[in-house]
């Protein structure tokens, strides 16, 4: 397994490098950042000063070389508009996004698995049909629309939950988290639910399909014949076997929860990385975009690795080893 992990890490390094090339050169084809942040009445002389200051007058490959040299020592460049290191700006906002993603994942699991199980065990009941119809809606409604609707209903009309921003935070192990305060929880619920909606639907459908398939398998029949209680059959034998695809998908989806919470964060003014990214794209703050994408690549690589390791824990038949051996 150690060999497997080392090999995977080496492959990952190549992926990270290729990604940096694509992102860096791709971004430099688009637009001219100087006109994004230079004051419109700035004379040409001033604009050229700014161009030189950010090294934009150098050829792209030279800029890339400088970036690569910095990146190897952990410096992914300095934001044009904030004047601070891009990595610092991203990590500053990371807890907010991670918190949102974890709460969304939590909602997806605690709502999705029971509902999916129910729909799988009693496929013909009207409740199951409602669940499945709901999951189709969850799939097909666009996030930005659902977000606005959630705000309209729960914040504007009913006034139950706040519409915007992050609530009070407490510091735990040096990280600011908001889900431990009442105010924080009330703020996180709507955006997390909005973000989770698609994942809930996904988990429901996966769990249902898995259940429908597994319920007719011999080991379930055998367990029944042995006289085990339904709760034990479902809770232990069935659940354990249908969890593998769910874990795979949730692992990948967790990455996308972190990386693409952009829409939700913008609508709910959630001070996370997604909001930072979308603003960086609008203002062509290249160092932030590059640093963000590099970080997301790393996140995906790590998650995939963790999922592979989790497999072997969940299913003893899966052995992690070098494919060529």
């Amino acid at each position, binding site marked *: 397994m150690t060999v497997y992990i080392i090999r995977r890490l080496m492959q990952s390094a190549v992926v990270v490098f290729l990604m940096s090339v694509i992102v860096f050169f791709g971004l430099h084809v*688009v*637009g*001219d*950042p*100087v*006109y*994004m*942040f*230079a*004051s*419109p*009445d*700035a*004379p*040409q*002389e*001033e*604009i050229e*000063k*700014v161009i030189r*200051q*950010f090294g934009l007058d150098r050829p792209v490959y030279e800029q890339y070389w400088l970036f690569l040299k910095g990146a190897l020592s952990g410096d992914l460049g*300095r934001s*044009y*508009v*904030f*004047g*601070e290191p891009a990595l610092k*700006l991203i990590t*500053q*906002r990371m807890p*907010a996004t991670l918190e949102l993603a974890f709460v969304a994942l939590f909602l997806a699991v605690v709502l999705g698995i029971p509902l999916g199980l129910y729909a799988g065990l009693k496929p013909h009941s009207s409740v199951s049909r409602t669940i499945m119809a709901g999951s189709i809606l969850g799939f097909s409604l666009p996030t930005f629309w659902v*977000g*606005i609707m959630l*705000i*309209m209903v729960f*914040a*504007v009309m009913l*006034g139950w939950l*706040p*519409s*915007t*921003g*992050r609530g009070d935070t407490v510091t735990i192990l040096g990280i600011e988290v908001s889900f431990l305060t*009442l*105010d924080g929880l*009330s703020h996180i619920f709507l955006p997390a639910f909005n973000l989770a909606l698609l994942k809930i639907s996904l988990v429901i459908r996966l769990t249902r399909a898995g259940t429908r398939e597994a319920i007719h398998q011999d080991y379930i029949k055998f367990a029944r014949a042995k006289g085990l209680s339904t709760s034990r059959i479902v809770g232990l034998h069935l659940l354990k076997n249908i969890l593998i695809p769910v874990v795979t998908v949730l692992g990948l989806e967790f990455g996308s929860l972190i990386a693409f919470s952009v829409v939700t964060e*913008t*609508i*709910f*003014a959630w*001070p*996370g990385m997604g*909001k*930072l990214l979308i*603003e960086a*794209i*609008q*203002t*062509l703050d290249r160092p932030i975009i590059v640093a963000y994408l590099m970080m997301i690549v790393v996140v995906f690589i790590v998650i995939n690795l963790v999922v592979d390791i989790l497999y072997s824990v969940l299913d003893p038949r899966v052995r992690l080893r070098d494919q060529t051996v």
Partner: protein
Amino acid sequence: MKSLKIALTTGVALAALTSFAAAQELTIGLSSEVTSMDPHFHNLTPNNQVADHVFDSLIGQDEKQRLVPGLAVEWGPIDDLTWEIKLREGVTFHDGSTFNADDVICSFERAPNVPNSPSGYGTYLAGKTFEKIDDFTIHAKTPEPYPLMANDLSTVSIISDETGCGATTEDFNSGAATHGTGPWKFVEYVPGDRIVLERNDGYFGEKPEFAKVTLKPIKSGPARVAALLAGDVDMINSVPTTDLATLKENSDIEISEGVSNRVIYLHMDQFRDASPFVSGKDGSDIPNPLMNADVRKAISMAINRDAIVERVMEGQAIPAGQLLPDGFFGVSDSLQPEAFDPEKAKDIIAEAGFPEGFKLRIHGPNDRYINDAKIVEAVAQMLTRIGVETDVETMPRSTYFGRASRGAEGDLPEFSFILVGWGAGSGEASSPLRSLIHTFDKDAGFGASNRGRHSDAEIDGIIEEALRTVDDEKRAALLAQATELAIGRNQAIIPLHYQVNAWAARKGLTYKARTDEYTLAQGVTSSN
């Protein structure tokens, strides 16, 4: 269950507390976000408006951008090359230090030299030398007569020489150095989430009504409106034009509106004999018709400004006939918005040698000005109606401005016919005249945004003379004259409209609408 009960009770108690405190606290939802709390870091509206809460300049700008005393009480030229500025006595910074001439000198030294600044304040301070005469008198010298001294000085925040001048941008973001003399004291800055300020009870000017203010960036327009309707914020800026009508009918909401200093205009290629996005009806190359002032005038005539204002802008604009709305310094009394006359426009274009009309492409941004892409489409339709077949290409501002400014070979403007806006930060007519109308001159800093490269030596001369004329009355007349020639005779640009900005607040709050589009918590008053 029990814990739920406790949670509910606490929730109710908290809600009661918040509504009690609400009278003293103000939360504002802003469409933009600061990039730094350092007032010298980035010369950009979102930053300047937040800096104006905590810091003062020597000279302030009131809601109509008229110059008013700030940290200076009197100012004026004592000879052609020297301005004398008398400073206010008895002012203390939030850090407790006393304000005097040393603070001013060190602020002006720091402002143009902030490391990593993407756009600084050097433009306003270049060519000026400042000399401390005594603790409360400063002389500003320029090599040539310079009338805009006071306007320039109104843009630069004064920081404390004890804690501010040696500080880094990071120190301002953390609050360690964020000590101004302004109406609000810095409490907290959480990037992307909020800025919290408390009232400065020792403020020398009019003290704000509220004890505490929270500025929250909410970029999405619908979300901003929802936050206001839900009561999460007390006031928002940049109300989306589509929501304005419904909000006006809502009796719990009060709207404050005011015309801005921003003119939306069309710039035309006036430097290429064959312009890249102009062709004959059959697609053949034709001499650039936009070189002809009559054709430019005809295009202006073909545009129904009232229709754009009413339909596209939903009333949130005023038709424009020059570079700044009435009431600003240096505007012309005689220029009116061009009357809509498509028939005459057609005739003029035929007389100019294009009886068949021609083909044109208009370029514009789609995320910069209020409804910008829709305006571009409307203009294209109106021109097509008079035989100038116009198609539309809009793009995000991140690509647009770079290409519009220097996208073509030789760092020349790429497009033939574009929509842009100009906000006169100085609040007077020399700002658009020198940047948009004056011949492009990189070394002298003229025509920096002259993307049509209009050039007229006579007008250049008048603008330059105005910029040397210290006497206000004479200068205003020169600026008006230059505007009349540039718009009335040459049609160097085609002004469309001035944006009207709207703020919405919960009932009982009013905002003094500002022409510079700033949202300042000290301008919010409760009407009861």
